């Protein structure tokens, strides 16, 4: 199953490599990983998207908790949560394709950030599935470049991760 794990960790150099090293050393897979400092500059917040059986996910959370720099671990998938990802797509946009791509961007609530005579650069945010759907909806030959941030997640309502 797919799980989204949120971490609060000390904002120390090397903390990120401890997490990524743990995943590679123990053979856990990482679908995506995002990290940035929080409003408290001594802490970083990381979101990891991973896949595994219940046993594997249990080990992943235990092993993460064991890392000395990690302050808190939460499996967001355990409760209701929101996840969002940002994608920038550069597409070939010439001739009649130009109108078509503009329309698709609108339908997916994307923004066109940059325009040249042959290209559009479109910004999209949403759950990963929505971004996948956009890419599936447009002509694959039009896609010149994509860049995605990986998911960031947060609990819904009163579900708060703080120290």
């Amino acid at each position: 199953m797919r799980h989204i794990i949120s971490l609060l960790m000390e904002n120390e150099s090397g903390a990120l490599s401890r997490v990524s090293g743990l995943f590679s050393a123990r053979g856990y897979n990482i679908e995506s990983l995002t990290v940035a400092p929080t409003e408290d500059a001594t802490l970083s917040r990381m979101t990891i998207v991973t896949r595994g059986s219940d046993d594997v996910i249990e080990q992943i959370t235990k092993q993460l908790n064991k890392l000395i720099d990690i302050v808190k671990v939460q499996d967001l998938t355990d409760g209701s949560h929101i996840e969002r990802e940002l994608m920038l797509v550069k597409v070939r946009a010439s001739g009649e394709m130009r109108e078509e791509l503009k329309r698709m961007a609108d339908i997916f609530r994307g923004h066109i950030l940059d325009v040249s005579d042959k290209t559009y650069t479109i910004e999209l945010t949403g759950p990963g599935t929505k971004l996948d759907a956009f890419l599936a909806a447009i002509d694959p030959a039009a896609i010149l470049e994509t860049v995605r941030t990986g998911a960031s997640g947060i609990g819904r309502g009163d579900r708060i991760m703080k120290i």
Partner: protein
Amino acid sequence: MADMELTGAEIVVRCLRDEGVRHIFGYPGGAVLNIYDEIYKQKDFQHILVRHEQAAVHAADAYARCTGQVGVALVTSGPGATNAVTGIATAYMDSIPMVVITGQVPTAAIGQDAFQEVDTVGITRPCVKHNFLVKDVKELASTIKKAFYIAATGRPGPVVVDVPKDVTQHKCAYAYPKSVTMRSYNPTSKGHAGQIKKAAQMLLEAKRPILYTGGGVVLGNAAEQVTELARLLGYPVTNTLMGLGGYPSPDPLFLGMLGMHGTIEANMAMQHCDVLLAVGARFDDRVVGNPKHFAKEAHRIIHIDVDPSSISKRVRVDVPIVGEVGQVLDEIIKLIKAGKEKPDQQALKAWWAQIELWRSQDCLKYDRSAPVIKPQFVVEKLYEVTGGDAYVTSDVGQHQMWAAQYYKFAKPRRWINSGGLGTMGFGLPAAMGVQKAHPDAVVACITGEGSIQMNIQELSTCKEFNLPLKIILLNNGYLGMVRQWQEFFYEERYAESYMTSLPDFVKLAEAYGHVGMTIEKPEDVEPALREAFGKYKDRLVFLNFLTDPRENVFPMIPAGKGLSEMILV
């Protein structure tokens, strides 16, 4: 004079003093010269100069294993640090509390491919409990304090503190912190009361119980509690390789070691029990073999461990208890004593009858009339001659298994070996660490001719520091454990497991200034040992026992098989 400024090098030395360190093991080099200069000027602790950094770390590790205190090693940057890595990984796998201070190139040179630069924090990251690079002298004392705290608490482990050379020159005010609080590190010590109650109940309801205890009992100083609980209930006990000494081996409740080279009675009882109490043991693959074959009789498992990630890792358990073994066992004992309930004596009697049947197969028997020296015989004689009270270190291989099977450890912290990493070369430096910690104790190193050559240079250290170790070399002329696997699983194709041109070990021992003996006949074994531990008790004696080259370790469970699939003699 709390606000007098000290250099980083002075701070390192003061921290060690204030931490109560009595011995450190190390080897100098450019990046740590300032620290060595301060060591030269002080008398609070002794520095033991080894001949290879790996040995410094093994010695510090064994010092920790036999005392329960944090071991300390000091090495230089680059090759000093890389030589230390095997020692660090060895300690990590067996959860040994240790602080290793490594020199580093000056902060400004980091990342420049400087002379003797390696990314020590990066290299050691997967084999330490934690590591630090100290970039500011103001953080030096608090980092060293944290290192000792992290190493010793929760599930113990090695911590590396990497100190750039300029940091050892910079100055700041020194104060050693009295305590440490870390928001990101708070190991659980007290077990959950509800779970403890469930465990006590489950134990009392057992019809075919067994206590399976491991290194955690030794590390957590809970041998007394294990013994009390087992005797209170009359339940059988088995130990892992790392747990030996956690229950007195000569006791009738003791079934011996379990696992790949465990006894029939221990392995069969594990397989057929209905309630299993696992204490400070981690269901290693050398212990339960294939976990799929393990739970055949659908037993219920209680597991006490301070590290949540050890629980339900390889085998699902029914009652997990996260906490210190000693505290949790105290509570369980209290509950059982306070209640009226007693174990089902009839069921227990039947269970013991079954166990005695397994035990009567006498799986550790061997040919006592052979004209050649049997390695098992040497270990048995060593046990007799030392009154069962020696500290025994070992290397890795067949000799290690024979030591574990035939030296009946009665106390914890007497059996010092590398179980998790299985590091050949561990035995001799480990014995040095033990002898430094216990100068008057009898220390024996059981080794093989392959293993001893991996750190043989330490014979020189032993001379310098007058360490009267007894080296018990079970010389079978083979990398015996490898040869055994090749005999069983590779149709006797002995690829590279035979060593020609072994040195003359007697001359070698003498060259280093020690006493050497070669023993070739069974009847000479005991007299040689008596001479070594008697007449030569104050000298290092290297006993080269020429043992049966074809002897194998039995029982044996082939890797990946279930506990009841043992190969017997």
